[in-house]
């Protein structure tokens, strides 16, 4: 389907969002609606001895107050392991834990009532350091101990490889607890329906999994739970797991009234999911010519209080700990460790930014020691399709490491870096560095990675694309529209999308893991194929043309054995009572065997990007400005260039935040950065100029050749910024973010 034309349209959701008319789930109101308040823990780690709700219940306007005993089904949730209570009954493990839920007639009363809930705690010692938490005598966050997951992947003989190396670079790196900071905080409305079912309106990344988790919490048939999750006011992974849904669902079922909550930014930053901070200890061995011989990596993942996706994130990090470089001897070990430091879960990049910051830094340091330039040392080590990865699987699908590296080398920024680095201010230093990254896409081996789509020809001759994948700002719905319109040969304005709802759309898996555009490409193509079959079937039933007759889309209709029919004509004939529906289903290709001891690994398809960064460091204050970034990205095939560039802009800003600004500071379990004056994200004044280099090396397993790009665009920028600071100043940054004071102290070690 390489010949399908993608009409380059503006975002289909642009006008509503620009004009403020788009209704997010958090904008909805229902008659008789109550407001929820989550009574959060007073301590980061404590036993709950008793909860007294009598005073709260007595407050005028309070409709109900729930405690753990009121959970009608299973009191827990979690994508992998449901170990996070909806309402804590016996123990709290972080400041965001819920000990009671209030529903009242106004938000104000709900908040007042929350303050009247009396909880008796027995305070426990705070577990706040993942390495300390591994010691045998450390206080336990969970009864089973503090190890969420331990994974060890080895190939060759790493000690032998390090002995044979001419240079070994060994360091410890640390990365921040980044917050997703979606514009729309965790929020939604739970609505009990007359038939006893529940409708959940809450922006999230996977309605069909929310449905199952809510069914478990409520103890209800999943068919009685209808989830509406689209559109989402920003996700970035922070709405992959459940957030507030369990709480408001319980309140709605108990009261029989719609119940709404919209978390404040402060509550979101305390209770919400975060990126896992990593401590990465890494030894990398090189020969004098730059060839990698061995890489020994151990990662400590600060899991926070509950599992969620901490295990898969650790494993994806370990899959990428030697990138896709040719390393014969590897030892990738990781520990996901429970602590009382908030909760961490899915976040764009899914563990890869943490490890590649470490590896790519070691790479540049080796290059400097060996007198090689950063491009040469990487080019010597990049893998090609058909070779064996550092964790031992054969790379069967396309590998574009060399292509993105070549492209970034040819970028204006890299070619003219010496000119860009000039400055006439005596206190400023400029530097340029580059980095590259693969990013495994999809869910990995052993996890069914499935996608469905329906293409409906409606009564009026227009189309409805029904698909699970939500629009949370990434621009995918514009791409889906273009794909469907391209296949159908209609203008994109004739395709509307119904997405992210368990009624009316179809399960296409989560909008995560750089999988939306790729999954949709094959699901939509399959649905289009089936639509042709359905048209042929309808024609056969009426005109006896033969059910296997081929119908071809052309110029706003189809050529059939009974002549050309416009879609309006086909609709008139066959879609008056119910839509004429094409159904498409697709299952991701995966590796034929799992890496032993590493659930989910390897991934089968990868995204690729290389990025170069120009920074300016103020040596007087330690301030760093990111002035210019070049991105070389393999899209496989570009569906909509504006959306691709938008993803690059956003990815660079989020990567810049990781590298320079963002960190949720937690001291003894208490979050100290509760709002945007202390949790620092880049503003429009801080983001750089961009140079975009778009490569199209088609991914053979996609109907259109597309690859996912949503995550990889924020990965190489992180090491690139850190290494550009080194190029500017000579100091190596081994802990991010490189805040002004942190960098100043590196520049002035005596301070």
């Amino acid at each position, binding site marked *: 389907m390489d010949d399908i034309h993608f009409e380059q349209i503006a975002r289909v959701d642009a006008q509503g969002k620009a004009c403020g008319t788009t209704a997010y789930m958090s904008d909805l109101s229902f008659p008789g609606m109550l407001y929820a308040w989550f009574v959060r823990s007073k301590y980061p780690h404590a036993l709950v001895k008793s909860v007294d709700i009598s005073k709260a219940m007595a407050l005028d306007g309070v409709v109900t107050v729930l405690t753990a005993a009121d959970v009608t089904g299973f009191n827990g949730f979690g994508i992998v392991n449901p170990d996070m209570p909806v309402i804590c009954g016996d123990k709290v493990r972080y400041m965001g834990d819920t000990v009671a839920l209030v529903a009242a007639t106004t938000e104000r009363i709900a908040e007042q009532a929350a303050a009247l809930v009396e909880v008796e705690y027995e305070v426990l010692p705070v577990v706040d350091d993942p390495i300390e938490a591994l010691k045998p005598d450390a206080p336990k966050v969970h009864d089973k101990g503090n190890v969420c997951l331990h994974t060890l992947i080895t190939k060759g003989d790493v000690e032998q490889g390090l002995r044979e190396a001419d240079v070994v670079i060994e360091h410890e790196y640390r990365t921040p607890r980044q917050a997703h900071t979606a514009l729309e905080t965790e929020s939604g409305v739970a609505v009990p329906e007359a038939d006893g079912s529940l409708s959940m309106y809450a922006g999230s990344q996977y309605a069909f999994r929310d449905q199952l988790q809510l069914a478990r919490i409520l103890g209800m048939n999943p068919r009685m739970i209808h989830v509406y999750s689209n559109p989402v006011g920003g996700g970035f992974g922070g709405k992959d797991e459940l957030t507030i849904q369990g709480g408001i669902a319980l309140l709605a079922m108990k009261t029989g009234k719609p119940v709404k909550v919209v978390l404040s930014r402060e509550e979101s930053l305390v209770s919400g999911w975060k990126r896992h901070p990593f401590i990465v200890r890494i030894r990398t061995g090189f020969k004098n010519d730059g060839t990698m011989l061995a890489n020994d990596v151990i990662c400590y993942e600060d899991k926070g209080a509950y599992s969620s996706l901490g295990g898969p994130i650790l494993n994806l990090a370990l899959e990428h700990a030697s990138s896709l470089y040719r390393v014969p001897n590897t030892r990738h070990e990781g520990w996901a460790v429970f602590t009382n430091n908030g909760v961490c879960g899915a976040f764009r990049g899914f563990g890869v930014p943490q490890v590649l910051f470490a590896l790519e830094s070691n790479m540049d340091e080796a290059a400097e020691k060996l007198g090689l330039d950063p491009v040469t040392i990487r080019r010597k080590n990049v893998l090609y399709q058909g070779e064996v990865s550092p964790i031992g699987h054969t790379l069967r699908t396309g590998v574009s490491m060399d292509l993105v590296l070549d492209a970034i080398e040819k970028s204006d920024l890299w070619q003219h870096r010496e000119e860009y680095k000039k400055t006439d201010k005596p206190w400023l230093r400029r530097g340029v560095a580059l980095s590259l990254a693969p990013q495994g896409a999809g869910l990995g081996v052993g996890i069914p990675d499935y996608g469905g789509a329906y293409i409906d020809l409606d009564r009026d001759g227009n189309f409805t694309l029904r698909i699970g994948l939500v629009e949370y700002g990434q621009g995918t719905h514009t791409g889906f529209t273009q794909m469907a319109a391209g296949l159908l040969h209609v203008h994109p304005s004739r395709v509307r999308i119904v997405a992210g709802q368990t009624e009316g759309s179809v399960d296409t898996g989560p909008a995560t893991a750089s999988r939306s555009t790729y999954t949709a490409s094959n699901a939509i193509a399959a649905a289009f194929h089936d639509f042709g079959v359905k048209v042929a079937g309808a024609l056969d039933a009426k005109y006896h043309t033969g059910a296997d007759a081929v119908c071809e889309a052309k110029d706003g209709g189809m050529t059939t054995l009974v002549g050309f029919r416009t879609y309006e004509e086909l609709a008139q004939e066959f879609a008056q009572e119910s839509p004429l529906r094409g159904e498409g289903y697709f299952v991701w290709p995966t590796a034929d065997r799992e890496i032993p001891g590493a659930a989910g690994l390897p991934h089968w398809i990868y995204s690729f990007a290389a990025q170069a960064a120009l920074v300016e460091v103020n040596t007087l204050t330690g301030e760093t400005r990111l002035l210019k970034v070049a991105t070389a990205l393999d899209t496989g095939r570009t569906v909509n260039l504006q959306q691709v560039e938008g993803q690059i802009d956003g990815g660079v800003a989020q990567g810049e935040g990781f590298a320079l600004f963002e960190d949720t500071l937690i001291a003894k379990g208490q979050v*100290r950065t509760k709002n945007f004056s202390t949790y620092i994200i880049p503003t429009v*004044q801080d983001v750089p100029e961009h140079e975009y280099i778009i490569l199209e090396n088609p991914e053979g397993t996609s109907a259109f050749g597309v690859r996912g790009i949503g995550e990889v665009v924020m990965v190489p920028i992180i090491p690139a910024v850190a290494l550009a600071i080194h190029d500017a100043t000579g100091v190596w940054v081994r802990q991010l973010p490189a805040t002004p004071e942190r960098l100043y102290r590196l520049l002035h070690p005596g*301070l």
Partner: protein
Amino acid sequence: MIKELEYHAAHDLKEALELAEQFGPRKRFLSGGTDMTVRLKEGLVKEDIIVDLSHVAELRFVREESGVVHVGAGATHADLSASPIVRQHGLALALAASRVGGPQIRNMGTIGGNVANASPAGDTIPALIVLDAVVSITSRTGTREVPIIDFFTGPGRSVLAAEELVTEFHFPATGPGELSAFGKLGARQAMTISTANVAFYFRIGGDRRIVEARIAFGSVAPTVVRAHKTEQMFCQLPPLLSWDAIRGAAQMAWKEVAPIDDLRATAVYRKEAVVGLLAEAAYEALASCWHER
């Protein structure tokens, strides 16, 4: 949760002063509200009565009369950063106002609120200090004039009495041979509270030497502070653009500040950073001044 408040809108200065007298210490003035709304949400406002000044049009002005610049307390940061009068006759103040928050905050926040809050991190304060500004403080019984340097008594505290209102700032218009500027260190380029800030005023003599200097630092002491010793060092600079000499003079700032550790930065770093901040801003200002002449 924002507590219940009694709200009064003043429509002119007279009404504002009457309300001030009537409610005394039970009231708090609201001007742009950019600081107060955050503090209300955090439960940090102890008063229960709000007197809204945002409709008092007569407090919102910038004018120059016989060599003196008058700025009404109701002038917004956006007003100040865009004002040709302030840009020409008190550049440090225009630059300081332009670095407050972001456009939305600059459109709402006022200089009167910024000063009356008496935050050690207030951006317009060091600028007013180096411009030798005087604060007009008005009550029902009259107006008194207080030099800005004497206005602050501690973090969040000032000489303002409960029935009084800051109505105006005035300072001598800078002219040829005088320059002023402002520098800010924050966590990012915009929407940031100063980790440290600096303003300075230099009068340049015929021989290109600095004959008079006023330097003030913010966010590095309980109140914004003048740096008299550093000023002396700048007055001894050679009349040529030397980075080493300027940095050397700025070094004295280290002895004139008393910062604390907080979430934004440590004290020891702040001491180092203000030196750099001053050196950088002074170098830029002197370079362009001497280049022009």
